[in-house]
């Protein structure tokens, strides 16, 4: 097991480097320069001034030199400075992380809390009235566009009822609030983004669990359990549930990079200062250091998530053992 882990970690290094090479080249071959947003189509900026900026950002060097310069700095965890505002890319990313992780962790928890019972109920009571109703609700949740639900909730809960703030992460007077006041303020701002970001993912997950559970319920050992005379409750919770939840490991493992990924749409609508907006803005502005920083961190977390999921699998499922 230990050897396996070491091997996996060592294999990850070339993969990680490969990912950075691909990201860097895709970015390099995308038309446009970071100086476009700063300087182009601005009548006050002449072409000489533009050339000067290009040289100052080191963009006139050949691509392999640019990549090598970047890689040399990354080894010592220096992701360079953002072209947009001159601040270190790592600082910009770190400053977004708490808000993003907060929203996503809460969202995943909420998703599990809702999706698991709904999925199990739907499987056990298949084709019952409630199962059908739940199925309809789940498909509605899955199909409605997030931005539409978000705007609707903002109008109803924020504007008409005035219960919750419409957008943002904190109120103006946040600094002056007591600790309890701060928690309350933050929580109020989080409710709407949380509902919207959970809506789609909960729907998907509950369907996974429903079908997983249905598969398990058809197995011979379930029949055996019933034959032994166990109660339905015991069969479902002691025998079926554990096995039906196995795919959850993969899903949660794969959602680790999503924890820091953020969602551009939800963050934009709720004016939420998260990673999704940072990444999107960086791409549109060709802010290479920030794009690469986010790319490396996401790649790292994806690999880590995969390894963790594999390890958890081997612990949870005795049929899988690594040598």
């Amino acid at each position, binding site marked *: 097991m230990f050897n396996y882990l070491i091997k996996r970690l060592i294999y990850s290094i070339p993969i990680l480097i490969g990912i950075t090479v691909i990201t860097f080249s895709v970015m390099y071959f995308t038309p446009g320069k970071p100086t476009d947003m700063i300087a182009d189509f601005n009548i006050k900026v002449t072409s000489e001034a533009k050339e000067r900026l290009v040289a100052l950002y080191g963009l006139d060097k050949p691509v392999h030199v640019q990549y090598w310069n970047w890689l040399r700095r990354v080894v010592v965890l220096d992701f360079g400075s953002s072209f947009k505002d001159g601040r270190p890319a790592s600082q910009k990313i770190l400053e977004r992380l708490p808000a993003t992780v907060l929203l996503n962790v809460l969202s995943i928890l909420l998703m599990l809390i809702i999706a698991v019972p709904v999925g199990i109920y739907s499987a056990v009571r298949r084709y019952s009235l409630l199962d059908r109703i739940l199925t309809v609700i789940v498909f509605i949740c899955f199909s409605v566009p997030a931005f539409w639900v978000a705007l609707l909730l903002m109008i109803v809960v924020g504007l008409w009822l005035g219960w919750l703030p419409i957008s943002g992460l904190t109120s103006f007077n946040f600094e002056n609030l007591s600790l309890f006041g701060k928690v309350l303020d933050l929580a109020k701002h989080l409710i709407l983004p949380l509902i919207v970001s959970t809506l789609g993912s909960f729907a998907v997950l509950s369907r996974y669990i429903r079908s997983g559970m249905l598969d398990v319920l058809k197995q011979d050992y379930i029949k055996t359990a019933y034959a032994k005379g166990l109660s339905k409750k015991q069969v479902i919770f002691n025998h079926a549930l554990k096995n039906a939840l196995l795919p959850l490991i993969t899903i949660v493992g794969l959602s680790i990079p999503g924890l820091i990924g953020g969602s551009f749409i939800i963050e934009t609508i709720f004016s939420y*200062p998260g990673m999704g907006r940072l990444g999107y803005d960086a791409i549109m502005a060709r802010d290479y250091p920030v794009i690469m920083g986010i790319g490396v961190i996401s790649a790292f977390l994806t690999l880590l998530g995969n390894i963790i999921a594999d390890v958890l699998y081997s612990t949870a499922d005795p049929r899988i053992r690594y040598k």
Partner: protein
Amino acid sequence: MKVKNKTLKSKNNNCYLLIVICSLFLFSCSSKEFQQQEIVSDNSSPVYGDAFITAIGSDVSFMNPILASDSPSGSVNAMIFNGLIKYDENFNLTCDLAESFDVSDDGLIITFNLRKNVKWHDGEPFTAKDVKFTYDVLVDTNTKTPYSSSFMLVKELKIIDDYTIKVYYDRPFAPNLESWGMSIVPEHVFRGHDFNDAPANRRPVGTGPYKFESWQTDQKIVLAANPDYFEGKPFISKYIIRVIPDSSVQFLELRNESLDSITLTPDQWHAYESFFKHYDKYRHPTFTFTFLGFNRLRKPFDNNEFQKAIELAINKKDVIDGVLLGTGIEINGIYPPQSWAYKELPNSEYNPEKAIEILLSLGFKDINNDGYLEYNGKPFEFTITTNQGSKQRELSAQIIQQHLKKIGIKVNVRIIEFSTFINQYIAKRDFDAVIIGWSTTFDPDQYSLWHSQQTAPRQYNFLSYNNPKVDKLFEDARTTFDIEKRKKMYHEIQDIMYEDPPCIFLYCPDSLTALHKRFRGVKDAPIGVGYNFIEWWTPRSEIKYSF
């Protein structure tokens, strides 16, 4: 300051942990964040207090006017910094940090006498050294500024004494004076730092009416009234800018009265009156114009007759009604009516029959009766390219597509992401037609847009417009300081361009603003409402926020 921030941050982290627990109780508590003050008193004389809350679509990049080039940064920096001169409400150059200024008769020397009572926000006096420093960083090749060009023309900048500056030029250049509207930055704050990433770029020290207080990235910026401002302390105590990327969310926040002012989109402008119960709406023409331009390096787009036929077939009023819902004006030249260089000329007519006549005379004919004209016997179509992200340009392209279909011209519309659009299409001259707009300076010098020498890949005459008379007039006008003489030249340019238009001018959109009614002292001027912000105030009984 730094230490304080750190403690706040760690407190926030503690908060995060508690939220799960608290979130269950939340729907029951629903008080508004701020308590309204209900004190009845005299409402006729200005009082200090209250806050003004506005929104920007994306965060500020640098709170350093030399480095920042995006418009959100511009609007925030304008509250914190001053230039030597500025434009007044009627677009005339007037004094700002300068007490007076003088341009020598040959236009080669500009003398500025500086105000003596000005202090930086940290208490240091403002002197000629700061002006010299600002000039030095602007021309320093290591400074990441896009604004170096106007200052590269300076031969020498001399400090005469603490409050007098003389700027020498090799050649007379009329827009030189305007360039000194550039904000002045403090020497003592940047001394010993790399200008490009000095701490002051995020914690600015300026001379303006508002002092920097706090900046939470991508959330909000708080500015506080500067009690020592040389034109008097502003009445509104705080100026708060929230970052709200989505314009419909900005509008919701406005309806919720949690924002005091936003820029409206045309459809928001036309929303039900009840939405604006607490707001006044202001509408101003802007120094921008949107046009349909043809690539003159391709045939038949280089033919003025072809362009004229297309112009006759486009119903501009229809475009303005469809795209701007009427909140804009039809234009036929490069200057908006509020510019001193503007010359009134009759608008182009909408006459599709005449358009078809011209096209037939150029060799267009519908041979195979498919409803579309063929050119010299071959099928003809062209593509209008525009950048993604501008709803107005996309809509304009679609409306024009419909108009041209009526006269049998097949048009495709292609919408490309901004950077790609510039690099792959504009810079490489790989387009038939583009819809794009210019946001111009108040000074009418548009040499860089239309002069035939400005056609290198990254220069701005990408339509390859070439008219020697226009070239000459632009050259002469930018070296003439006498306004009346300049005006005559620009009128002549407009006359020539009327006969030989560089493109099809479409419209000039209005800027649309909503502003909360509680503010008094607001003056509606040609330049817009914000220009006298320091004189705005709210009556005591209507003060919404207290600190």
